[in-house]
């Protein structure tokens, strides 16, 4: 086939995918940016160009800062903790022990559940008075706590569910990576009389570095995306204590019908994701194994 007709053929193959990608990813990204620059129109008053007014409104609104702060705490806690637990799980699930396949399955099972179902399961733990957590602390003589109903504990309760949900998912990547470490390394370490901690720190962790980077990017994306449980557990309350960015975008657009401010908020998230993407592509260039 001649190069010209090859090229034509390739574009034909790509055409359907490009149409849908443009319609549901590229066009809406640009449309979001565009509509973030206009006021909310109505039947009587058409939308007017508002420059960066919507962004100024957002930044002037303490709720925005509360939501961004919440999401930073959410990311700042769920990412390192779930990665650390995932690593621990993988080390355990990879070692010699009884009931190994049960252990592995138990760790991974939350990954297979919808977030909305996970939230229902956890309701049973958090319900004040009758929930399991209250019973446990009751044994030690503490008073009942309204875990989801008070600002001091609500966000942490949400964070716990997320950690529970994603740790097992990250575990499998560590598990796969652990199995590629040559057994000779461990044998050599045993002969040298290396302690377990040194072996972990000097041999295993450096070899797992590419996996950690891959998991880190996934965890970052999840810290924006995993919000379904809010719909069941708190609806962003009490007093915005658990409101996260994506939930807030949904609320602005579909509860308050305020598309322009939702668009401005979306643009901020897209910028953040763009930064993550840039870092990620750099890492690919540096031949971290994720390709």
């Amino acid at each position, binding site marked *: 086939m001649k190069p010209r007709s090859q*090229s034509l053929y390739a574009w034909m193959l790509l055409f*359907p995918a490009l149409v849908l990608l443009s319609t549901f*990813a590229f066009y809406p990204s640009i449309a979001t940016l565009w509509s973030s620059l206009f006021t909310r129109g109505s039947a009587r008053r058409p939308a007017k160009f508002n420059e960066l007014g919507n962004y100024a409104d957002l930044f002037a609104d303490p709720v925005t800062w509360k939501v961004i702060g919440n999401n930073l705490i959410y990311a700042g806690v769920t990412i390192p903790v779930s990665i650390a637990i995932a690593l621990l799980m993988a080390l355990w699930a990879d070692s010699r*022990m009884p009931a190994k396949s049960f252990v592995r399955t138990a760790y991974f099972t939350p990954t297979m559940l919808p977030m909305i179902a996970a939230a229902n399961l956890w309701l049973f733990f958090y319900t004040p008075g009758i929930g399991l957590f209250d019973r446990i602390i009751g044994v030690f003589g503490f008073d009942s706590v309204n875990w989801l109903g008070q600002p001091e504990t609500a966000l942490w309760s949400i964070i716990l569910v997320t950690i529970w949900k994603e740790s097992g998912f990250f575990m499998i990547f560590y598990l796969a990576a652990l199995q590629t470490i040559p057994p000779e390394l461990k044998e050599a370490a045993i002969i040298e009389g290396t302690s377990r901690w040194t072996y972990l720190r000097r041999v295993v962790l450096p070899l797992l570095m590419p996996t950690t980077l891959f998991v880190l990017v996934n965890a970052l994306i999840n810290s924006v995306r995993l919000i379904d449980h809010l719909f069941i557990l708190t609806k962003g309350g009490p007093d915005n204590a658990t409101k996260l960015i*994506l939930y807030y975008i949904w609320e602005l657009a579909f509860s308050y019908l305020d598309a322009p401010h939702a668009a401005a908020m979306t643009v901020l998230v897209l910028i953040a994701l763009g930064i993550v993407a840039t870092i990620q592509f750099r890492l690919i260039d540096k031949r971290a194994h994720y390709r």
Partner: protein
Amino acid sequence: MKLGNSPLISLDSIGALFLALAWISPLLFAIWAAFHEPTHAIDFDLAAPWTLDNIRAVWSQAPWLTYLANTIFLVTLVLAGQFLLCTLAGFAFARFEFRGREVLFLMVLLQLFILPEVLIVENYAIVSNIGLFDTTLGMAMPYMASAFGIFLLRQAFKAVPRELEDAARVEGATWMGVLLKVYVPVARPTYLAYALVSVATHWNNFLWPLIITNSTDTRPLTIGLSLFGAPESGVDISMISAATLMTIAPLLLAFLIFQRQFLQAFITSGIK
């Protein structure tokens, strides 16, 4: 502690087992609650009788079979679309030389980070404008041209030895023939892995279906479950647990039976 010759029963295995129990305890308590009267469920009275009343009550209170059919239709439609579009696009990127290929591929990769979830507001407007609001097709379309699928299949196709293609060509196969007879069969493990991940993802999807559906005829299980469990519906913990178990049962059972394949699928899709 030294490496090697660790005893089978050690502090580690106790820790691992304890964590495993903690990790499935929400599920275990849901099973406990779903099969007990609400009062017994809360008391943890181990002698309390087991009952199917909750399941029966939940079953009769919502159109679960319709929700289930909707979910199955949704994941099938998404997967069929993904297979078709990503196969064609992946093949083009893997096997053809054309101007702008690199730039185009980079744009596809960029979509990995523009999460469909983030663009819900505009996508809602687009789907409504083309008249697909509250349809399964409208719910499925934004996910069909999956950058992730294109990427995975491109990798799989690139790994196919050229000799296989040349052999097919000698026998007079066209481009389509080569794709269907040589590339697709070789990439079968990738298709399987991708299918499992895709089905699991869309079976569990919530936010987008919440926005784009408005009737029992299109709502998937996740939406049905959230409507059923809403606080204003006044159902108790036993009913919620029963409904939750019912909605997660199909996928969970499939996972428990085909566990190895599922784990392998998630690993393949992540590392390739």
